[in-house]
């Protein structure tokens, strides 16, 4: 029994860079939750993404149908795929009080806000598995693994969803990545 079962609506924001798969991460998150019997929507920040530029994606998870279609203005959860963008983008913008932040980071980041902080070294996982495209570690799916643990989505649902969305070797590598991240994610406590 995790967060997802406790709240009627969870709003999430994913931060990454163009080409890093933040939208796919949001999609798989929703798809997994749906497999667990929840409802969800996911959508990109509607802009012209360029490879490498900071981008955001959004998701909403809920017990019943999600009615609102507007932008997520005050997320409950923020997922940071790429910690380096934190020096350019205020990833905490609008985050609810005592909100949850899941960061891809090898170390404990320095955060001057009261949040529930989780980290996982998704980059390490990706590099270990050889999940690299054009020099970029592919961390997005690993982050979904970590996030699912935080939210209380069943890991099996996540793995099913990955296998459904991807195929072949990419699917299997990402399944492994998600599993590892699921287990390696750790809570750091307020910053």
């Amino acid at each position, binding site marked *: 029994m995790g967060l997802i079962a406790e709240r009627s609506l969870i709003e999430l924001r994913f931060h990454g860079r163009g080409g890093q798969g933040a939208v796919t991460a949001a999609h798989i998150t929703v798809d997994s939750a749906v497999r667990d019997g929840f*409802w*969800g929507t996911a959508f990109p920040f509607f802009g012209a993404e360029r490879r490498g530029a900071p981008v955001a994606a959004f998701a909403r998870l809920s017990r019943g149908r*999600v009615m609102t279609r507007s932008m997520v203005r005050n997320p409950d959860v923020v997922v940071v795929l790429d910690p380096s963008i934190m020096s350019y983008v205020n990833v905490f913008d609008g985050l609810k009080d005592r909100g949850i932040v899941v960061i891809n980071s090898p170390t404990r980041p320095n955060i001057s806000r009261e949040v529930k902080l989780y980290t996982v070294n998704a980059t390490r996982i990706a590099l270990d598995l050889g999940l690299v495209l054009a020099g970029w570690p592919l961390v997005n799916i690993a982050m979904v693994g970590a996030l699912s643990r935080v939210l209380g989505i069943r890991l099996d649902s996540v793995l099913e969803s990955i296998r459904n969305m991807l195929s072949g070797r990419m699917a299997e590598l990402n399944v492994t990545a998600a599993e590892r991240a699921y287990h390696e994610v750790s809570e750091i406590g307020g910053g």
Partner: protein
Amino acid sequence: MVKLTLTGNHCVAYAVKLSRVKVVSAYPITPQTTIVEKLSEMVDSGDADIKMIRVESEHSALSAVYGAATAGVRAFTATSSHGLLYMHEMVWWTAQARVPLVMAVVTRTIGPPWNIWTDHHDIMGQRDTGWLIVMAETNQEVLDETIKLFRITEDPRVFLPGMVGLDAFILSHTVEPVEVPEQEVVDSFLPERRQPYTIRFGDPLIMGNIPSDLLLNAKMRWDVHEALGRSTQVIDEVDREWGKLTGRYYGGLVECYRCEDADFLFIGAGAWVGDMRLAIDKLRDMGYRFGVLKVRYIRPFPGARILEIARGKKGVVVLDRSISAGSAGPIFLDLAAYFQGKNVTIPIKNVVAGLAGFDVNYEDFVKIGERFVNEVSEVGWVENHLEFYPLR
């Protein structure tokens, strides 16, 4: 029935495939592009038995599917914004040629400046042309309506083309759970292609030369209007049958949420109706009894159905996501004129909002609703029937 999480655009692609469309021709434009891409992928992977004509413009896209349809097969196209404007001549042409075909319109605002976000100027600008126009609120509705439109447009009482509108990004690129029907279900629902005439080799039938009898020609045009009138019944029948097959009945031309006991109504079309639903729940908590009347069909305009529901209410707010500049919002115009024609006096406020993609959510609707109730109770009517939101 499989439950998948799909974007609105992928719902269109699935619907097209399930409807056993034979010819697709479309031209890329953000945010419609992923429809064409998905269909291309389905075709190239052998997943769909469709012939794609990869044209050089939208004018040609609609022309190509028009040719295919006239020649006797089910055909489909999709576009958005400037693409729709660029094919405008053919939009008129296909309706008056009485050729059934279906188009998805991912509603997007019009430039300049270049802007890819949603509003409804593009699709509402086609409301004179004789096409059926249905607006979706959810991805499920996108999928369902696309399939149904083939059945409705190919009904001999109708024989007109139809378009389904889905909001840029907030449907087109948003994933949500969707029940995708089995092929057999769709097959049992959709009859073989029917159309009023077919151009064939060896059969000298001539379409479109100059009329000698202008009154007859005037009647042809009027029959486009009448056929839209006749389609109201077809829509109802088809919606009910689909409801029986799938459990999803939308109410035909319009859909209601908490209308029965409401004093006030929000009336609007498209994806933002979801936020209206949320808003009226809150408004009721605040003591204002609102309901939502979702206009599913823009054409035929369901004046009679709306009036049935709105009669006796204390006030109505029509939310338009476009404006007929120099007059008012198009849904308001159709609706208020209809009410006038029936001598019904209910205060109606036209709020034009969400232009150029400006985000509007349930909180905004709550504000609009509250303001409206106050205005009506103070003034006894509306002070100014047309308002831009947010007010300056």
